[in-house]
């Protein structure tokens, strides 16, 4: 039996079959290993989205913990959640959406090569981002003052006897259940804290992008860093769009059971 390998076709990998002449456009940001600039751009977006998917899983774990513990300690989650200020939370939602709007405009400015407009939209993105952090700080300080930080100094009295603290719209809960309010605040500080950390990282990156935008890096056809940062910034927005109703809003009409 003849085991020798016979070549039946010309041995040509597909890369070498076609080598037709075609035009190369040389632009500084186009890396050698990408065929076209569009391919490079898509590869960048693809990579950024893969990173954001890991972030969905990261925050997803926190959201899932919230779902489970809210089911377990519903009676504690209701008054703890209703302590939060809907006014401040709602204002912060609007502020964050505004910040995202300016970031979206920044991408347009970079695409249209409008340097001044790009710089101003990045500055406004940062201003509204810091405003969000500022209001968040006011809220955290409120909770600090009321001893709502989980731990040894946690004070259950507002939940055990709300009327004694001038809270008229919340029903009193037993002390052992009131201890579980700590779990709500643990998750609240964990989720809003991780969200704020993402924003602070974003605000740091914005400073760097602003400097590069001022240098003119992104208004000569190279918009990828602005575009990919915008994806990150909008993603952080989306996390808050879920945190706001889940932490602030959904417990205002507790179920009787």
């Amino acid at each position, binding site marked *: 039996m003849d085991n020798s390998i016979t070549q039946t076709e010309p041995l040509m990998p597909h890369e070498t079959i076609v080598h037709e002449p075609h035009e190369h456009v040389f632009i500084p940001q186009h890396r050698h290993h990408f065929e*076209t600039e569009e391919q490079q751009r898509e590869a960048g977006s693809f990579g950024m*989205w893969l990173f954001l998917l890991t972030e969905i899983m990261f925050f997803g774990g926190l959201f899932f913990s919230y779902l489970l513990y809210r089911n377990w300690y519903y009676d504690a989650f209701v008054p703890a959640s209703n302590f939060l200020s809907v006014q401040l939370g709602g204002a912060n939602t609007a502020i964050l959406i505004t910040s995202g709007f300016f970031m979206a405009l920044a991408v347009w400015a970079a695409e249209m090569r409008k340097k001044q407009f790009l710089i101003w939209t990045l500055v406004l993105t940062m201003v509204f981002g810091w405003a969000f952090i500022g209001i968040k700080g006011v809220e955290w300080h409120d909770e600090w003052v009321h001893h709502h930080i989980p731990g040894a100094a946690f004070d259950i009295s507002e939940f055990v006897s709300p009327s004694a603290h001038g809270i008229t719209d919340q029903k009193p809960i037993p002390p052992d259940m009131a201890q579980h309010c700590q779990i709500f605040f643990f998750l609240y500080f964990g989720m809003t804290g991780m969200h704020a950390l993402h924003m602070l990282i974003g605000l740091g990156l914005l400073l760097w992008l602003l400097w590069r935008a001022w240098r003119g890096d992104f208004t000569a056809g190279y918009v990828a860093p602005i575009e990919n940062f915008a994806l990150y910034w909008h993603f952080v927005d*989306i996390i808050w769009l879920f945190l706001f109703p889940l932490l602030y809003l959904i417990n205002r009409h507790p179920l009787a059971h």
Partner: protein
Amino acid sequence: MDHVAHQHEEQHYHDPANVTNPEHASHHIVTPAVYGMVYATLLAFTILTIFAADWNLGVFNPVVALAIACTKAVVVILFFMHVKYQSNLIKMTVASGFFTFIVLITMTLSDYISRAWGLW
């Protein structure tokens, strides 16, 4: 022309599928008008969700709140994050991420719900 000479020197192999692939042939620039409409929509839904929380809808309060949040998230993903104008590769990537997240939630919840099955 220095770069033309360089081009002939190097062995540059091309996969024509990458050069002519219609998937990433065009690039769409979203206009400020579209961003403005998205911004107004997001603000309107924020006001709506705050008012909806004041109405006593019973078990549907969280459902309505999450439905509004999902609507806002989809608007952000499609327009602010340009997914509407991206290639099928990006669309599938985004969709697969959320799909995987739903699978994980469902599986973990099934475990949680069935732990004490028949013991009550």
